[in-house]
């Protein structure tokens, strides 16, 4: 919790958390006495970032349950449900109430309170009404939207936005995003400029402009002034860059997500991996032979351990954005340093020296523990990254991204299908193939479809149709290959990558610079800043032409590349109603300007790392704050559009 607000960010995101926290206590206090909290499983993670369990306890929460199907047994008579307005949850709640009513005829004993996050919807109320329980429930709202993960990272934690937006055409998440951004605007001032790419992103920008008008009606006193800190909002639509999430993330945090899956900045791993009980002294040489990797050893009933991955862990801060290739070395170095620090005790002769050492000991031990944890995790990831499957897939990916030997990759993918690697891995590569190539040739298109259906089951016919609809896996049209141009123009492939001392964002994928972040660089700096290029020179040269918001360059000079990418391009300037009176501060540029980046449809950890890398480069000139609908990776992205059924208990889905 305390990890927020430690950096000297110009944008105080901690206040967002405080706000959410305050509202939560209000929600809890609205019901008197002891109560039972029933949580949407998807909310409980985000909620844990807002308030610790002891806070809930202080406000009378005696028990917590997950909102799920089946009867809810509790002796507490006051129930508080907190959930997203989703229809199936309404059915569960109706089920609970129905059960209570059957149990004891006078159901009035129970008191039901339902709080929707972030707002109540008519449609849910309707479902409750149809279930005949609407009258039993007191309904409220809990306006939890953007949750601060870090000082530079906010997430709406909505699930499956990409699927909802592009497959279902359900724009609810855009509405939520607009409301959340509106809230930011009321807090930090109007975004002077809204720039973006993608159809849904455009939709979001339009809705923001519209809402600003509406806000003037709702709250007369709030005539929003132009923000002092934020120079622009960049909205990127996931559909603009689907290639990046499909590639395997190669940063430490990214790989943790790929291998274990991170949920609301927590990861669950076997307690054996990070076991605090292990007596072995941690040294750099890997002596712990715990590898439950590919060969499935019947491991003892491993207890899962939840580990928080945030900036309260100093070691993790150091590691999270690094390319995994150098993580081992860093761990080694730190292990040695800690060892030396421990050794200091031998030098401690006088009482004063001993006391000094003892004072340091607490920090040293927690550092030690953190080192143990990350060594364990890194080892596990290492075991995964040295497997031939992983390397083969990575090679295919990198060749595809770089546009080398495209046709050869077909054979590799075919072999992977034959080996029956998890379908998600295969789909990731096939989609990548299709995306970089502008589709597959008719013959191989049908061949791969058949291979997938026969290997992984016919229900994936729907999966394939979904992917086709999303333009992720398609038959080649007549159009020329657009991605080649984009790749060249935006210098997406950087041949020489120094993972140790990265010069460019391409280090996050060991050679491929995420398209999305390149686009951001276009907007903020006028283009990619490759190796040796003086940082900021580009920006300075363009700043005069920047007009409205100084320093922001906009899409100028990249129109051609943008045309090659799907979706509309936009650039709107927002002014204060009474004519823009910009503060002197902003004109003189004394304060680092904050650029807010919003990913509609989710972003990956590597993209976050790449943006942090940019922030490092721009230290003192510009800060970046990332907001996203959720954090995704290739697996979760594809999983959301995959057809899932149970046949004979074999789950068709992948592992995430």
């Amino acid at each position, binding site marked *: 919790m305390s990890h927020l607000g430690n950096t000297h960010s110009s944008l105080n995101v901690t206040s967002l958390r405080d706000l959410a926290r305050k509202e939560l206590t209000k929600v809890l206090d609205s019901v008197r006495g002891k109560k039972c909290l029933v949580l949407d499983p998807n909310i409980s993670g985000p909620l844990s970032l807002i308030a610790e369990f002891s806070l809930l306890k202080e406000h009378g929460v005696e028990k917590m349950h997950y909102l799920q199907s089946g009867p809810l047994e509790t002796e507490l008579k006051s129930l508080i449900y907190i959930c997203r307005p989703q229809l199936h949850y309404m059915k569960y709640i109706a089920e609970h109430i129905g059960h209570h009513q059957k149990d004891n005829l006078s159901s009035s004993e129970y008191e039901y309170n339902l709080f929707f996050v972030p707002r109540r919807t008519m449609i849910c109320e309707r479902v409750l009404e149809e279930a005949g329980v609407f009258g039993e429930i007191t309904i409220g709202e809990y306006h939890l939207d953007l949750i601060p993960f870090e000082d530079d990272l906010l997430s709406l934690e909505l699930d499956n936005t990409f699927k909802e937006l592009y497959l279902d055409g359900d724009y609810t998440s855009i509405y939520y995003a607009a409301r959340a951004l509106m809230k930011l605007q009321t807090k930090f001032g109007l975004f002077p400029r809204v720039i973006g790419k993608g159809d849904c992103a455009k939709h979001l920008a339009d809705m923001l402009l519209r809402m600003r008008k*509406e806000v*003037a009606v709702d709250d007369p006193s709030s005539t929003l002034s132009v923000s002092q800190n934020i120079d622009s909002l960049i909205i990127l639509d996931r559909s603009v860059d689907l290639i990046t999430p499909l590639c395997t993330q190669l940063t430490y945090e990214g790989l943790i997500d790929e291998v274990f899956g991170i949920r609301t900045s927590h990861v669950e791993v076997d307690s054996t991996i990070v076991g605090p009980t292990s007596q072995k002294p941690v040294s750099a040489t*890997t002596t712990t032979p715990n590898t439950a990797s590919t060969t499935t050893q019947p491991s003892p009933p491993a207890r899962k351990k939840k580990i928080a991955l945030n900036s309260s862990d100093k070691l993790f801060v150091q590691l999270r954005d690094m390319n995994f290739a150098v993580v081992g070395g860093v761990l080694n170095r730190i292990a040695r340093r800690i060892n030396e620090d421990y050794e200091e005790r031998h030098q401690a002769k006088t009482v004063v020296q001993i006391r000094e050492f003892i004072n340091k000991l607490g920090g040293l031990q927690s550092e030690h523990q953190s080192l143990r944890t990350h060594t364990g995790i890194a080892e596990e990831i290492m075991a995964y990254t040295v497997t*031939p499957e992983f390397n083969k897939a990575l090679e295919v990916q990198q060749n595809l991204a770089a546009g080398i030997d495209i046709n050869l990759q077909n054979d590799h993918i075919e072999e992977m*299908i034959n080996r029956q690697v998890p379908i998600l891995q295969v789909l990731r590569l096939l989609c990548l193939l299709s995306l970089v190539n502008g589709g597959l040739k008719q013959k191989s298109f049908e061949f791969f479809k*058949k291979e997938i*259906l026969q*290997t992984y089951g*016919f229900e994936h*016919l729907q999966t394939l149709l979904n992917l086709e609809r999303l333009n992720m896996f398609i038959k080649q049209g007549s159009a020329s290959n657009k991605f080649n141009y984009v790749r060249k123009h935006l210098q997406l492939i950087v041949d020489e990558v120094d993972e140790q001392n990265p010069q460019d964002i391409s280090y996050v994928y060991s050679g491929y610079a995420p398209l999305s972040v390149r686009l951001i660089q276009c907007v903020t700096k006028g283009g990619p800043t490759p190796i040796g290029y003086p940082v900021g020179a580009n920006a300075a040269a363009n700043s005069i032409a920047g007009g409205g918001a100084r320093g922001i360059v906009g899409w100028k000079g990249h129109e051609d590349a943008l045309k090659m990418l799907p979706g509309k391009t936009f650039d709107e300037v927002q002014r204060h109603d009474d004519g823009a009176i910009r503060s002197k501060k902003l004109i003189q540029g004394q304060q680092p300007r904050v650029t807010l980046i919003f990913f509609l449809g989710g972003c990956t950890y590597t993209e976050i790392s790449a943006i942090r890398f940019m922030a490092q480069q721009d230290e003192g000139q510009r800060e970046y704050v990332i907001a996203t609908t959720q954090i995704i990776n290739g697996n979760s992205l594809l999983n959301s559009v995959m057809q899932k059924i149970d046949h004979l208990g074999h789950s068709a889905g992948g592992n995430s």
Partner: protein
Amino acid sequence: MGWSESEKLVVVLEDGLNEPPHSWTVIPPQYTLSRHVEVLLATGSTILTVDTKESQDQLLQQGPFTKMAVSPNGKFLALFTTDGKLWVVSTDFQKNLSEFATKSQVPPQQLIWCGTDSVVLYWDKIVLMVGPFGDWIKYSYDDAIYLVPEIDGVRVISSDKCEFLQKVPNVTEEIFKIGSTAPAAMLFDALDHFEKRSPKADENIRSIRTELADAVDACTEAAGHEFSQYWQRNLLKAAAFGKAFLESYNADNFVNMCQTLRVLNSVRYYEIGIPITYTQYTRITPDVLIDRLINRHHHLLALRVCEFLKMRTDRVLIHWACAKIKKSTDDEETICRMIVEKLANKPGLSYAEIANTAYKVGQPKLATRLLDYEPRAADQVPLLMSMQEDELALIKAIESGDTDLVYLVMLHLKRKLPLPEFFRIINNKPMACNLFEVYCKQQDLKLLTDFYYQDDRRVESANITILESYEQKDLNERINKLKIALKWYQDDKEHAFEAKAIDENIRLLQTQAQFEKEMNQQLVGLPLNETVHKCITTNHPNKASKLKSDFKIPDKRFWWIKLKALVEMRDWDELDRLSKSKKSPIGYEVRPGLFIKIGDFKAAGQEALALKDIQLLSEIKSKCTNHIIAQELDAYIAQLSSR
């Protein structure tokens, strides 16, 4: 507030009274201890305090009380007894405040409070005002009058004028009392001397130096209580004069008072005719004053007052527009233009209320046109729905981007309209369709089937049928559903592949069902690969081959399935035969190579050990990723090289 409880009150009354009360009055809930309405009833010689729960006899002897009145602050009660005594007590009857003998046996026509410290009694053409310490004033009138209590005085209404009777406010009294030496009076006097260029001005100021700030405040306040602009001006001048001698004086009060007086003077102007006092104005707030103005249709003044006080003008403008619509006889085009022109430069003004008014006075077309200007979709939609503008409501809801609003309209329409009509409305609106589909997928698949069918969306129909097929427990049912889907796909040339796939799916299910009987294995629903795999591991190679040819499994894949299955079975002979067969699409591979290929390094190592091939072993080791196995491999190598 308490009126809903009147029934309960009646019950109490029936119990307690045999005759009508001599008089009665109500204490509003905010002034009572119980925070509920209390009613005071004079009966016999006493008074009952009655609330919703109980009645309490105050056990008084002085009665009967023919008149009673509660003071504006709810603390005091004025009573008039039959023997002509005016008696003031606290409303809880604990304190006896004052008594005054009027020597009139006749009860007054009116007994009311004037402010909170004096009581006014009215007999025919005579008004008697009684102060807190028994001092009194009598006024005579020529005509009959009526008294209206105000928060700070009494309004006297006669047939030709309206007077205001008020105890002189303390600050005013302080300043203007003859011989007053209060600081404020001294300050006011100083100004007088100053204007006459008399040095006494300085003397005066010096004498009140320490209390000068209070004096300024007092003069400012006194100005507020004045109706005459002459005195207002003089008092404010005095305040300003005193202010000049102060180093750090917060002039907000002064400025506010100047503004307030300007507003008060303008509404008191005879053409407007709202003779409101300063105290009343601060009590009702400027907002209410604006309401009063617009209700009297003084829109222009209201607008100016709003602008002057920097308040929102929306309310005034909206009220104006509504009034215009109600009154105007022009055609809708003219009205609409007139309203829009006037309100055009006010962004964020809500048109919903104006439109609603237009709708209510029977101008639905005007309403629709006006609603177009409403910036908040959430406000447009419900009105459009109530105006039966269903389709427009849906369009507006879609424009708003608020999906819930779209659902609101759609569910309303679905309930209201026959299904085909409903489908017709949403058909050409993609977002509505999308949301409808999402809703149906969770709530009502059957409805979705109808929807796709009426719109002739075959592929979607097929997809939904396939979804349904998964839910079928019975195999035949499942196959039937798939057959329906097959038909849908076949109708569309673009989806030949899908048709073929579904056809294969059906055949697979049928084959699986057949094999299931023959093999006594659970097969139905497995993917083709796994089915083949199972056939091999359960020693039904013929069946596997049949599947291969029936479903045209490529050699390469079939070979892989077989390989995996054989390794699982540890069928080395067959594996050898397979790897050496010329037909093998993967080519000749030694057995350890097979294991490497499928990732079983341990087995590969054991094989290599058996072959005594050190080179192979180290090759395996270089590929191996597992520490334990790598160690074992090292052991093998050591074992071999030692020989």
